[in-house]
């Protein structure tokens, strides 16, 4: 372990200890409800390293001007010093009263990037060169009055299930890079990570034939409509009671008839580990969705579908994502 690494690790340990002692300072503990308004109670300022170096240069200039007893040079130094130091107020103003109104995560599968949009709201002043850092990922953004204020960040999403992003650090070194202003945000927000999609998954367990259809026809089948009888229709689909009422032959049209319907059963997948099963089911859900094949999902403790469409897909992937892990 090099000296640098040792210093870095002890510094981060020190920071952690400080944050434990002063949770209010860093919003480490409690998640806050939205919206979160940045104000002077939670904005912190320190000079940047460039700010310190610049101060040292100003000091040298000051000494030079004083030594040569040269008043115009001293005035120039004072002017530059005052202009650079008052930028601390501009830096503060650049993130003061920035309000985090909403967060939205795009659907994402484990292993892919989790894209979170943060929606900020500002008053009438435009803000420039703001930065947001979450878990080491940094994005630069400007906020304009009247703009939508959306900022997108990408986080790694390793595991399925609920994922709470780390603390959000909104910061800026505007306008001159001399002062670092920042604020910690810990919004009450979780994103759902869908399970990983299995690569090279086997094709959908498509089943054909009426027998299968009958086998799969169950409580979920819905009577969609009645229509006039065509000579090719099977006799058992005739709605006798309704036909009697209307004096003509009517045929029961079931939803499932319009396409094939498949059952994705967790328990039928054997010989592979639990996570791979989940990944395969997730892949099948997606494939079925693109192929417009109605599908139902049978999980150990619940059953979804059959159905088709974004809602159904989301419900299925959500159930899969929240399945307990292998250990539990």
């Amino acid at each position, binding site marked *: 372990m090099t000296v640098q690494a040792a210093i870095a690790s002890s510094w981060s340990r020190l920071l952690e200890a400080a944050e434990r002692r002063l949770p209010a300072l860093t919003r480490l503990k409690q998640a806050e409800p939205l919206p979160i308004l940045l104000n002077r109670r939670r904005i912190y300022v320190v000079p940047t390293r460039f700010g310190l170096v610049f101060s040292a240069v100003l000091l040298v200039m000051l000494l030079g001007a004083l030594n040569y*007893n*040269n008043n115009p*040079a001293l005035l120039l130094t004072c*002017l530059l010093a005052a202009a650079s130091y008052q930028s601390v107020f501009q830096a503060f103003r650049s993130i003061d009263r920035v309000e985090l109104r909403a967060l939205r995560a795009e659907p994402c599968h484990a292993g892919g990037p989790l894209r979170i949009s943060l929606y900020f709201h500002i*008053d009438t002043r435009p803000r*420039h060169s703001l930065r947001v850092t979450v878990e080491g990922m940094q994005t630069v953004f*400007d906020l304009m009055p009247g703009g939508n204020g959306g900022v997108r960040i990408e986080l790694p999403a390793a595991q399925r299930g609920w994922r709470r992003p780390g603390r959000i650090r909104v910061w800026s070194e*505007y306008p001159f890079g001399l002062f670092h202003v920042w604020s910690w945000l810990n919004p009450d927000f979780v994103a759902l990570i869908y399970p990983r999609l299995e690569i090279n998954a086997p094709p959908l367990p498509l089943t054909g034939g009426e027998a299968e259809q009958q086998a799969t026809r169950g409580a979920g089948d819905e009577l969609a409509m009645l229509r006039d009888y065509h000579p090719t229709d099977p006799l058992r689909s005739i709605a006798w009671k309704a036909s009697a009422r209307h004096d003509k032959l009517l045929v029961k049209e079931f939803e499932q008839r319009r396409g094939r319907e498949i059952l994705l059963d967790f328990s039928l997948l054997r010989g592979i580990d639990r996570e791979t099963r989940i990944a395969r089911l997730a892949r099948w859900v997606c494939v079925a969705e693109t192929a417009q094949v109605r599908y139902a999902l049978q999980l150990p403790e619940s059953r979804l579908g059959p159905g088709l469409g974004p809602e159904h897909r989301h419900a299925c992937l959500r159930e899969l994502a929240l399945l307990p892990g292998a250990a539990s």
Partner: protein
Amino acid sequence: MNTATVRLTPTQFGLASASVLVAVLPHLWRLPLPLSALILALLIGRWVQRQRGGARIPASLKLPLVMLFPVLVIFHYGNIFGREPGSALACAMLVLKLVETETRRDARAAICFSSFVLMSALLFDSSLGFALLLFAALALFLAAMHELEPRPVDAAARTWGVSVRDGLRSGAFSLIVAVPLALCVFVFFPRLGSPLWGAPTDTSARTGLGDRMAPGAFQELLIDDTPAFRASFDGPLPARANLYWRGPVLWHFDGTAWTRPEYFASTNDAGTLQTTGATIGYDVTLEPSDQRWLLALDMPIDVPNNAVRGADMSLVSHTPVDRLLRYHTTSATKYHLDVTLSRWQRGLALQLPEGFDPRARALAQRWRNDLHSDDAVIAAALELFHNEFFYTLQAPLLGHDSVDDFLFGEHRGFCEHFSSTFTFLMRAASIPARVVTGYQGGYYNATGDYLVVRQSDAHAWAEVWLAGRGWVRVDPTAAVSPQRVEFGARAAAGASAPWYQADWLLGLRNQFDLVNRVWNDAVVQFNTLRQQSLLTSFGIDKADYADLVAVLIGLSTLLLAVFAWWTLRSPSIASDPLDAAYARLCGKLARAGATRAPAEGPQSFAQRIAATQQTNDVIRNPALVQNPAIQDLFTQYVSLRYACALPLAAAVRIFGRRVDALRVAAAPSASK
């Protein structure tokens, strides 16, 4: 992605280059030509290379340059210490920093260093215009720093001009806002009593009076309009014809030039001066000349600190005047000086070089023989000048026998020729005489009540010694051209001035000189003494370091508090005119007894007002219920606010006016 290692964009690099250029430019004209040329070529070359997308400069190219510059500086100056070589080296190193600038960190280092180099330019020239230019250059530095801040990746590409304009606006804003704080620190920051390290003086060529005068040498001076000094009188301004500002007195003539014997510079052996009239007290603020002469009106009585008065009554400082110098003295314009002339002074005042100007000597001898008194000889000489000579600044060059050439050939010249020739003639006629150089006249600035004397007011006249009267001033130029004394050298030379010296322009400039004087007075001349007396009106006679620091901290805290207030003040609420109008409407209704609940929308509020009978929260003001205008206003508000994305400004104005026009009777007090 670490922003510190990302390559600079062309705009960022361009602004950093501009900062370096601005920092180096004030130095370039002073540096030796090869060095300036090299620095400028390197700067422009690097910029062009970089704009064309050029790569990093390899170390094999940088290293020789780093070695080359110190060698060049040492070659030219002899060492690398001191103001001149130091600043030359700083400029060179700054440009080298730009050569290797690739990342944001490099650019920041270059800007830091630029500030230092820019500041050091003021050590050489601290005139107002120059200083203001450099102050303005700070905005460029801040703009460069502003540009270095990262921009969103998806941001629309901005043109070069827009970036620079935004940056400059931000920089200028910061500078202007910073002025009060800067002034506060400037005024109250304790000055050093003595320098921390030796500040070796440099001699640079400045125009001004010298201790040598060869006829024709003033020519450059007489067209130089920079101020030589400014004077403000304790009493009224003396007559212009009396404004003879005494500089070096020249005794020794070698046939071509007049010089001053070294003896006078080192002894405090004043002549015997008897004043016969009132004395005049005045302050002089002398511009730096790098010479040791102090100018004084006619015959100085007091000797300023750190100076001596020679036997010929000229003031000489112990050290060269390398910065603005202010002194107070008194002078006599009516006097008897050296009624008895010592033997060796007489010898000096009669010295003439052998083998020069035989015809002039012969003329003077003839006068001596024909005329009986010294006065008559002087009168004859002035008569000659008056009748046959004329005044011009375009004087021809003179040959070996310069006095003869002038006296019998050219017949035209300016003060130097006349005073030199006149003194020569007097000496040849056995009258002790000497040449006095200095300034004559000056421009009186009525607004500031002071006199500004420029280099172009340089003048030379003669003094002759007469038995019983001592040294008497004779101005032969006045015999030729009285306008020289009355209106100045340019007026005397005729209307041959170029356009930029037009009368109205000169008048304007003379008026504007007041600003320079205020600058010199308030800023350049501000010193420990003045600082100490700042707090006199607050009961502190002599402010020491602790007092100054206390005031400095107090005042800057106050200023920072103002900044903090500006930063933290609550933003103005309801900037939207429609919201404001609605708030006014609700306010009116509340005064009339109908208060809108915080969660109540406009429609339900309107319904509640209209409803005559309700179990709860009945509004017991019949005026509201019966007023159809109120319902109308609510309908309008709803359609403006919710029925369109952006209400028309005109419609909002009409709504606002109608809200203001609404009159509702207050709720009857009995209802409570």
